[in-house]
């Protein structure tokens, strides 16, 4: 036993060997907040492109122009786009049909994705705001964040408002409260207390220079115009005059111009073997072309680039597999989104917007030969996009439906596109002013001038009179593929109506459900919207 105690000391010595107990984890393969890569301010998220670089980049990743997020939930439930189940393809558990027929539920994956993407983007803006910004940058960031909250308010109604990184216990605001926040943030950025025809923006921290990838006074006013135009939906109180004044101010003072005759860019989709392909894209088509940067109509856009700034995937989402040979595409498309036949037919044949907005008819490859689809299911091998769609599900023909092509494609295009995506453009300002003025006056003909300005640009005949239905149709033709249609249908009271393969829906569908996954994650802070 004497020995035992000696040996116990040895054991204790071993146990006491705390000399090598350093457990610090020095991450060398990951970027964390503590790490400052040269030029990358991880804390503020700004990076080498300035403190707002990450904030504005977030627009690309917030579902703006790809499948599964904001764009999808704005477009598919509307009467302008549909994704049909093509045999085994694109059924996807019925969630696309649920969107089309307004039978979505709180566990709809895209509604959850949209929520997560949008709050993620808000988080990035909040990080920028927590860093050191000059007054102009601060105003831009607040305006951008207000834009995101407008999206959330429009989609989900009641959402929490978080304004600083890591804020805990944020309560779910009412839709009216979110409206108030969005309005006051935008007014704050503009340095005014209200929008009026006589407002003075000289005190605004926002600038007036035209850089559509940032937010200037006109971008902020454009967003405000959208917000006011829908104010009645959000709060029950119409704000038509402010909507009209904001749009009017942009039209009158912004220095922007509609892209009409003579406003053109080289046609990057031009096929050497197809004589009918124009050398240039002019007018309306130029506004959305792959090389549409610096278009005079752009007020606030998202800067996409096929190599450095991906995130716009219409080429994959919309085209048939074999359309790869029309544009010499780098990757095979997915054959998803199509246009509803009635919507396609609402355009006059001479309307330049029709040709600019859709891919339709028999398709030729880059050499001018007909593209053959050897897996064709309609008995005709030639790939031919028909405006008619035989059925929604289960066996929509693979080539049924005109394809959205307004954000047009280019030869040798990649899965990611380079077109800049329009959030605020002058054309919409004309529409907003026309509608707001008409509604304020109770007379749709008040908008004739503005609407006819746009129609003239598109070589469409001028209206001599207007009513609500015709205005809505005209707005649809102008704003196709710009993620506006769901909001417009709700404002016009048509969202619950019927269209192709879409029965009437309950008004509770006008607000999406709060995603159930988020209700769970919030630990009871979030409650569900009525009707779900």
């Amino acid at each position, binding site marked *: 036993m004497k020995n035992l105690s000696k040996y116990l000391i040895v054991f204790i010595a071993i146990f006491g060997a705390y000399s090598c107990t350093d457990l610090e984890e020095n991450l060398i393969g990951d970027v964390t*907040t503590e790490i400052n890569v040269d030029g990358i301010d*991880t804390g503020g998220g700004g990076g080498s492109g300035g403190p707002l670089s990450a904030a504005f980049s977030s627009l690309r990743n917030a579902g703006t122009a790809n499948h599964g997020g904001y764009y999808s939930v704005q477009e598919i439930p509307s009467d302008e786009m549909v994704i049909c189940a093509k045999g085994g393809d694109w059924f996807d558990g019925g969630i696309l049909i649920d969107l089309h027929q307004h039978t979505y539920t709180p566990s709809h994956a895209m509604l959850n994705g949209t929520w997560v993407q949008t709050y993620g983007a808000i988080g990035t803006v909040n990080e920028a705001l927590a860093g050191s910004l000059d007054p102009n940058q601060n105003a831009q960031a607040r305006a951008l964040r207000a834009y995101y909250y407008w999206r959330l308010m429009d989609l989900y109604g009641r959402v929490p408002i978080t304004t600083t990184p890591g804020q805990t216990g944020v309560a779910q605001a009412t839709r009216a409260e979110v409206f108030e926040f969005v309005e006051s943030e935008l007014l704050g950025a503009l340095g005014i207390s209200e929008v009026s025809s006589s407002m003075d923006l000289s005190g605004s921290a926002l600038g007036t220079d035209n850089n559509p990838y940032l937010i200037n006074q006109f971008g902020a006013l454009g967003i405000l115009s959208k917000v006011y135009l829908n104010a009645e939906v959000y709060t029950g109180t119409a704000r038509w005059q402010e909507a009209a004044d904001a749009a009017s101010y942009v039209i009158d003072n912004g220095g922007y111009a509609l892209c009409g005759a003579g406003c053109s860019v080289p046609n990057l989709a031009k096929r050497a073997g197809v004589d009918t392909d124009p050398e240039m894209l002019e007018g309306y088509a130029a506004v959305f072309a792959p090389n549409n940067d610096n278009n005079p109509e752009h007020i606030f856009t998202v800067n996409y680039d096929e190599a450095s700034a991906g995130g716009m995937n219409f080429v994959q989402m919309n085209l048939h597999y074999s359309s790869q040979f029309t544009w010499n595409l780098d990757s095979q498309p997915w054959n998803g989104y199509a246009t509803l036949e009635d919507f396609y037919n609402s355009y006059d044949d001479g309307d330049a917007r029709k040709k600019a907005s859709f891919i339709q008819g028999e398709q030729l490859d880059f050499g001018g030969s007909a593209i053959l689809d050897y897996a064709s299911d309609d008995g005709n091998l030639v790939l031919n996009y028909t405006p008619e769609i035989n059925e929604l599900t289960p066996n929509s023909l693979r080539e049924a439906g005109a394809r959205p092509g307004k954000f047009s494609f280019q030869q040798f295009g990649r899965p990611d596109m380079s077109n800049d995506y329009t959030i605020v453009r002058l054309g919409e300002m004309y529409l907003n002013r026309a509608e707001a003025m008409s509604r304020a006056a109770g007379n749709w003909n008040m908008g004739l001038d503005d609407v006819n300005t746009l129609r003239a640009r598109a070589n469409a005949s001028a209206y001599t009179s207007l009513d609500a239905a015709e205005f809505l149709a005209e707005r649809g033709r102008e704003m196709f593929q710009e993620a506006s249609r769901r909001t417009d249908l709700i404002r016009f009271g048509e969202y619950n109506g019927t269209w192709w393969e879409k029965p009437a829906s309950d008004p509770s569908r006008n607000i999406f459900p709060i995603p159930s996954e988020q209700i769970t994650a919030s630990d009871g802070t979030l409650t569900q919207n009525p009707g779900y």
Partner: protein
Amino acid sequence: MKKLLTTVVFAVVALLFTSSEIYSQRTVSGTIIDSETNEPLIGANVLVKGTSTGTITDIDGNFSLSVPSGSEELEISYAGFSTQSVAIGNESFLNIGLSAGQLLDEIVVTGYGSQNEKEITSAVAQLDAKDFNLGAITDPAQLLQGKVAGLQIYNRGGDPNGVSTIRMRGISTVGANVEPLIVIDGIIGASLNNVDPNDIESVSILKDGSAAAIYGSRGSSGVIIVTTKSGDANKETRLTYNGQIATSSPVNGISVMSATDFVAAGGTDLGSQNDWLDEVTRAGLTHIHGLSASGGFNNTSFRISANVRDVEGILLNSGFDQFNTRLNLNTKALNDKLSIDFNTSYTTRQSQIGFQEALRYAVLYNPTAPILGDDSPFPFNSAQFGGYFETLGLFDSFNPVSIATQNRFDGDRQEFNYGANFAYSITDALTYNVRVARQSNNYEERAYYPTTSNFRGNASSPTRKGLAGFYDESKTFNLYETFATYLTSFGASNLTLTGGYSYQQENYDDNAFSIGDFPNNDLDFSNIIESAQDLQNAGFIGAASNASPDDKIIAFFGRANLNFDDKIFVNASLRREGSSKLGVDNQWGLFPAFGVGIDLNQYLNIGPLNKFKVRYGWGLTGALPSLSGLSREIRNITNDASGAVNTTLARAANPDLKWEEKGEHNLGFELGTGRLGATLDIYKRTISDFILERTVDVVEFQVDRRYENAGQLSTKGLELSLDYDVIQSSDFTYNTGIVFNTFKTILDEYVIEKETRANLGAPGQNGTNVILVKEGEEIGQIWGPVYVGVTEGNPDFEDVNGDGVLVTGQDKALEDDVDFKVLGKGTPDFEIGWTNQISYKGWNLNAFFRGAFGHSLVNTFRAFYEPQLSTQSSYNYINTELAVEGLTTARFSSLYVEKADFFKLDNLTIGKNVDLPGDYFDNVTISLVLTNPIVLTSYTGTDPEPSLVDRGPTDNGNSNANYYDVLSPGLDRRNNYFSSRSIAFGINLNF
């Protein structure tokens, strides 16, 4: 016990083959009796000491044996009796009495030492080389498949380059590594890749928490301790050669339509007739050669071996060449007080990983499509596709033969490890050990898709054709351990104390890049990537690299083993362990274990029993996911269009992240008579605070992901092993053994009440999650609508809740009114393994059956391709007996969930010892092994074995994501290799 019995049987088998033609021999005969009762002992093992020459006694206890001249002693052994050596002298008849009562002690390797089998108080199984599965083994885990109750080993399909999924008692954790800890010759965290099956002496499996707790955080999923063969000091050098040649062929392909049936069913006729599965598979030829030398001199012993495995898979251009060498050296110094063990091994493996996708596309490719473009019914530019035909314009469809023959996907792994153990006996009672080990593993992968390959080579596109992929990975593991063992006794009781310190450090880095757009197909441009046009165009080159921080585990451990009078055994251990992965305040964890065992037979003396042990053990272990930076905020670097760099949050920090803990209770009973051995284990394990990346409130965290301690799982199970010598006579023996296990895992607590997982994928079944995970319920439930019939091509589903409203949309899967049901579960109710070893007059036969029951599989091939979609008549249709005529819409339902119960003859070995004249060879054994010859199942897919982990969907030529979901068992994905059967001829020569 099992070991002993099987030893006897094997010895018998060996003896039956013993030569009687060798010259200069004489015959010794005799009788073996129980010295207490004077009853003859039947089947006692009689061996000429130091040789493999021997026999067993007959029913009267008699034996007769040819003894080579110069032999001095016989060794007599019998289950339950002390082994006895008897000098032969000049006797020709020996009457030998064996004394019972002294149980033969088998030494079982446990953590940081070994114990007598009787002293063990936890669920431990030990297998020796003779228990292993034979045949053309490609992965050491296959040696153990089905042999240990509670140890699940499945290599679905049987890709020669695939890695078996190993589970001890089901899943032990959700987010962490669920594979057991591998310990090879004392080196923890070793890799099974680096040991050749030929070199393994024994494997010890620590099943429960009380045994594994000494390994702390890494022992949660069980521990597999491998001991490699070593030499004997003072023995002549012996050479052993093992050779095998095997051929394998596909079994259970997937039943698809022939060209004729396909056209009749409305398929698009492209004019040819091809059986695509046939076109991409082959009879795979395998060679295995192993040579070892072992021996020793003075105080030194050694064993050195070299093994070559050249394996061809059944898929064209898949297989591997492996070369492995190992040296085990032991020497003693300082008056034998210092014992030094040195082990080193080197393995290099060149794999042709090949393309499993060829099998997938062979299933769905149009059977009337030609192989070559020149046979196309319409004008086709064959040259553009390397001469092959391609169905252009179709989603997810590639010529299988082109995939398998035009492209290249190779892996090259180099593993090197060494370990040295120094054990110094300070006194007879106190031993001090120092162990140093290092492993390094370098792996590189090369993929090349030429400009003419439509599959990933982009041949159909006018631009950017050809792609080369490069991947390099390097891992190192350093281990430093020191521990001391002190033995003491108090009267009839013994106490062993062990205490030590362990330092483990792992480092990992990898890099990958891909580049494409090559000039043409005249060269393999992956060797001249400066030719790639991607260099001229921004944004096409793919590149990524990772490096882990120093991933450290530091531990202090102690253990006491108490033996009271050989009757009561108590083991207790404690490990305090810290990890660099956890939140700063939660880095250290304490892992205690306790076990007690009583040999009741010492008190009860029940007649025929020579063992009746009851034991109970409890232990706590921990677990951590393998990723680093779990508790930290992680950001992604992104760009804006101007090229400027910025970062966004990818994962939120969780400074409170703490150890995941597994507590396990195990109650065991061991029973033995001379011929029967039985072990029953009942256990309950609770895994609390399991670590999982989960959805968190994006409003608060700016991102919806972070690691949390997310819930609790509990498993209850039962394992039974039986081993029985049915017949023991001098020329006929039959031994049979069964292992049985059953368990159930419940998700007790989870951060969300329920969710669905495991998306089926494209085409058309995205958003279709088929596995339900729900608090309070068993994991692995397959969830979906119930198929009842077909109307106008569409499936009709059951109104499960009978409310008159049919709710079957996938986004309503979690709604209260959904008409979904649990359609099956991914994990089996029970599994059995049944070993039969028969020897008769020099022949031996080993038949091993294996089965799993109660599990289902989602047959995804059928779910996508069995309905005869009118719009997709360019794919082939799956055509099993379950196909529903007139169904033209693909919707997931009970129709595609199949019971996958199976019972198979896994391995059939027939062997014979051949006597060769002359004394050049000690002995020669030849064997014939059939692997997987008979499979009984109703499952219509390629392989009914349970799918324990889900790897997610892949489509349209994309690669599988590096993703393993253990909460979603039960999916037979479209990316599995097809299973094979093989015939192997083997020869074992001892010089």
